[in-house]
């Protein structure tokens, strides 16, 4: 195997231009497909984080008494799918609003009376995150006594999630196309090398070289091309990720958003994918070419 590896490295160095073209093609494909993958990974993390905090605001009718409020709380607690209930009094609600509208507090200060209602902030369990379950719970809560309105803002997240899933499908499709295109380019590069070396291969056969003796260095070339392309592509992606991360570090931490790069296992899998691409390119070329 050392002999074949040495042979493969020598062949790469002898056909530098063609091999560089293939390596760059693989690198770009890995970069683009992995960039999609990284985007999906982090977007999925964000969606999951948002979905964890699914809340329903239950606004109580004006003039609801203490007893009625406690009764409504008791009824809420008995509904399955509810993780926690927090009471926000109208006074607390006004203070919260003032804190968010710091530059417009004068507007709120001039109000004669507090227009905001008492409310319960209801947090749902993760299993109740689906639009259908939220809808069902909301309708049930609406029917409770003293409840004037039920509000939940998850509809837009779910619509966005549907769009995101569609985008993910498109990403898979594009990834598949990039993969096939890269295999095709790698195959053609190897074919060009084989063609330029057909006389040499013919002579090798005449002196008793087996098919494996001829093919194995080419397969190793394909693996090395794929590995090199994968490393370069991942390296470029990591550099871009680090640059973007440091550029927007403050913004992201303010929004309590953390972005992450691929795990080691995923990186190894991506490199493996690059190597498979190089290998497949060789396979399709050699299958056709190395026959007498």
């Amino acid at each position, binding site marked *: 195997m050392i002999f074949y590896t040495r042979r493969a490295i020598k062949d790469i160095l002898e056909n530098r231009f063609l091999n560089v073209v293939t390596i760059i093609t693989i690198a770009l494909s890995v970069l683009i497909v992995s960039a999609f993958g990284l985007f999906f990974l982090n977007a999925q993390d964000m969606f999951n984080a948002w979905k964890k905090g699914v809340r329903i605001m239950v606004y109580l009718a004006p003039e609801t008494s203490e007893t009625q409020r406690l009764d409504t709380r008791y009824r809420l607690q008995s509904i399955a799918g509810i993780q926690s209930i927090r009471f926000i009094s109208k006074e607390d609600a006004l203070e919260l609003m003032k804190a968010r509208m710091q530059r417009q507090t004068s507007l709120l200060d001039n109000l004669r009376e507090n227009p905001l209602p008492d409310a319960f902030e209801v947090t749902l369990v993760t299993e109740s995150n689906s639009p259908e379950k939220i809808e069902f719970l909301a309708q049930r809560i609406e029917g409770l006594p003293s409840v004037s309105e039920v509000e939940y803002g998850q509809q837009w997240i779910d619509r966005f999630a549907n769009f995101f899933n569609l985008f993910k499908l498109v990403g898979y499709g594009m990834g598949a196309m990039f993969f096939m295109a890269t295999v095709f380019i790698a195959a053609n590069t190897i074919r060009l090398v084989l063609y330029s070396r057909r006389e*040499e291969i013919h002579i090798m056969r005449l*002196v*008793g070289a*087996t098919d494996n003796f001829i093919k194995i260095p080419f397969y190793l070339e394909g693996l090395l091309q794929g590995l090199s392309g994968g490393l370069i592509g991942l390296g470029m992606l990591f550099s871009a990720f680090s640059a973007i991360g440091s550029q927007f570090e403050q913004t992201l931490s303010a929004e309590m958003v953390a972005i992450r790069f691929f795990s080691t296992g995923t990186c190894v899998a991506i490199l493996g994918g690059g190597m498979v691409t190089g290998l497949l390119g060789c396979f399709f070329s050699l299958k056709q070419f190395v026959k007498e």
Partner: protein
Amino acid sequence: MAEKSAVIRMFHVHKRYGAKQALVDATLDIAKNEFLFISGPSGAGKSTLLRLLYLAEPVSEGQILVDGMNLSRIPRRRIPMLRRKFGIIFQDYKLIPTRTVYENVALVLEVRGNKRSLIEKKVKSVLRVVGMEDRMTAYPPSLSGGEQQRVAVARAVAGDPKIILADEPTGSLDDESAATIFELLNMFYNRGATVVVATHDKTLIENATGRVLQIRQGRLETPPDI
């Protein structure tokens, strides 16, 4: 000829290229450690006969036995093993131009999976014999025709083949270079190899001892065995 001393046996071999008969009913025995010339004009079928021996092409009809191997029944994966029995010298040398003299000769041993130390020892030895030891790092395009053919001879004998096939080995060479090549072939013949030379060079044949087989329009004209 006693069957056991024949290293190559051909039985009623025909070779056709479409309508053209390149070899017609060739029956031939070549003994172990024999020096055989196959002589005839261009296009007579000399090269075709040699090409059939190392299965560059299959026969159209008939059978060929090489060192006991029936070429009609040999599976594709065993063809490299057959070819390793031969050392082949071509008129156009067939050296790999992008490999050095050393690497061209070493190839024969690399395909056999020999160790690096053994390859180095053997290559240097055969290059010394053919007088090309000081050109080991040269590339074939920088060598003269005679030098290239000497390297080709070195490559042919590096694997200690049983049979040396030479297809017009002196065809592209001047008289002096041709004489050198012939001396080398004689040397390996004296060391025990079977040598088969296809040539139209009458001077070469006249000055040598060894059986001569005439071939004309695909037909062998002289008795096929000793």
